[in-house]
């Protein structure tokens, strides 16, 4: 029985150190939101105090974060006092990890006279409702319906709060983070399109 020869590879000296890598320079700090103040914000802060949570500028775009209980008054103030007569967009963002304030509802406003845009944001909890903006700008009609359709946020006082893009009987709100991208309302699909939950078999 021969003794297994020891590996003839020379052992790597433990003391051999790899040449030191040059230190990676720290990344330059990216842009951060800067506080933004103007006369109107000042006035609002005086009236609502802590209701105006934040007023900042990021990359040249101004935004204001307000409390959800006063958002309709803020929007009316923007339209009536500051002349923001055009609601550009109304949408929502879902942050499931944020307790008690899962949804960010964003209103983008524009003033023709001043040629400026401002974003008014508010944060609400899952299941809470917001007052509708339809009486302030009729544009909000379908935009709010889409927010309801995609996120499930209801707007009180809306003339016709129902789904817009998805079929009426659909269960689920797709743009929420827990709704997987492959998910669909299988029951609705089966009843209405005749596709069984197992999917379309080839040859059909």
């Amino acid at each position, binding site marked *: 029985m021969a003794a297994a020869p020891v590996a003839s590879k020379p052992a790597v000296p433990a003391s051999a150190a790899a040449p030191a890598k040059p230190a990676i320079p720290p990344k330059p700090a*990216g*842009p951060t939101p800067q506080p933004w103040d103007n006369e109107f914000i000042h006035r609002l802060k005086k009236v609502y105090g802590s209701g105006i949570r934040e007023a900042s500028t*990021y990359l040249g775009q101004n935004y204001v974060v307000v409390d959800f209980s006063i958002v309709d008054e803020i929007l009316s103030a923007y339209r009536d006092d500051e002349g923001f007569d055009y609601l550009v967009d109304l*949408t929502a*963002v879902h942050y499931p990890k944020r307790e008690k304030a899962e949804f960010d509802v964003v209103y*983008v406003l524009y003033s023709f006279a001043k040629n400026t845009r401002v974003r008014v944001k508010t944060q609400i909890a899952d299941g809470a409702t917001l007052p509708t903006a339809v009486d302030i700008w*009729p*544009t909000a009609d*379908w935009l709010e319906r889409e927010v309801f359709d995609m996120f499930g946020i209801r707007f009180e006082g809306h003339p016709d709060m129902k789904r817009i893009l998805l079929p009426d009987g659909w269960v689920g709100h797709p743009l929420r983070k827990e709704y997987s991208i492959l998910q669909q309302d299988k029951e609705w699909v089966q009843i209405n399109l005749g596709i069984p939950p197992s999917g379309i078999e080839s040859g059909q």
Partner: protein
Amino acid sequence: MKELLENDRDFYGQEWNEVEKPSTYLDSNELILNMGPQHPSTHGVLRVILKLDGEKVLGTECVIGYLHRGVEKIGEHRTYTQFAPYVDRMDYVAAISNGLGYCQAVETLINVEAPPRAQYIRTILTELQRIASHQVWLGTHALDIGAMTPLFYTFRDREEILKVFEKYCGARLTTHAFRIGGCQWELYEGFEKDVKKLCDFIEPKFAEYEELLTTNRIWVERTKGVGILNGDDCKALGVTGPLLRAAGVKWDLRKAQPYAAYSKMDFEIPTGENGDTYDRYMVRIKELYQSLKIIRQAVDNIPDGPIMAKVPKVLKPPVGEIYHSIEAPKGELGYFIVSDGSLQPYRMRIRPPSFVNLQALDKMVRGLLVADVVAVIGTLDIVLGEVDR
């Protein structure tokens, strides 16, 4: 008539006279007429439920969502670069505009600006796309009103524009022409000559379209006074684009908040007076000529230089959100992007001009006749891919 209605059931098993009852009215003298979703002139899968009193329209209800593909949801699961081709498929008639808006929005987010040469290329291609989009609009709108010949003329001339696109980026319709940070493709050999020849070729064709329609008595009678939407209504409803300009509001994002190379271009903003269908027609025709003017200026002055800014290969924008919009041929096309610092956007919201403009349909057709509804849908210039995303 009641028997006729009772036997029809709509797709979801609802009875016709129970379908979508808005809270304001339902009277037994009304006839409910359903247009679409498959209909020769709803420009896509749009369902319009008309409540008629004889031939007069009392109100409409639009049912959309037949082309909903979940683009915003997809946006959360693709990287910024991967999402760019999806954007073309929304307003598929004017894909280059969509791409421009998206690339500029992401460039705003990562605080990078495309180099001047890329800006000029983008401007030229976007204006060519505007002409092509308006040609599609003109052909289909004229066809709805009954003039079948302009359709063939406009589509024939649009072919020349699509040839230029094909030579530039390989695709005619869903072009994906721009990249985040600039353009990927350098201008091909002979691009300037092609574009100049194209401009010379196409300008007399605009005069042909006008000859067929602008002073045609039947066209004028069909479109003057139809679907009036004045300036205040437009602003309140959020309607932008040629509809707003036809109502007399001289507002164009290319002049109000210039982007790409528009600040260096000299062009006018055509406006109308009454906000009716004829004014919208004239505004878009004049926009065709203005686009030619921009293209001619731009193509003579393309600066040299790189076509792509320094953008990291792995694109991870810092945490934050922006909203950026451009003047697409149909109105204000906006992108609201929320980034959480990762490779994929946290929220990709697209503000489609056609979606918001389509809301105005109800207001525009009250009191008109059924034949006018078709004209008004045509003049709104909607593309269902954009409405439904």
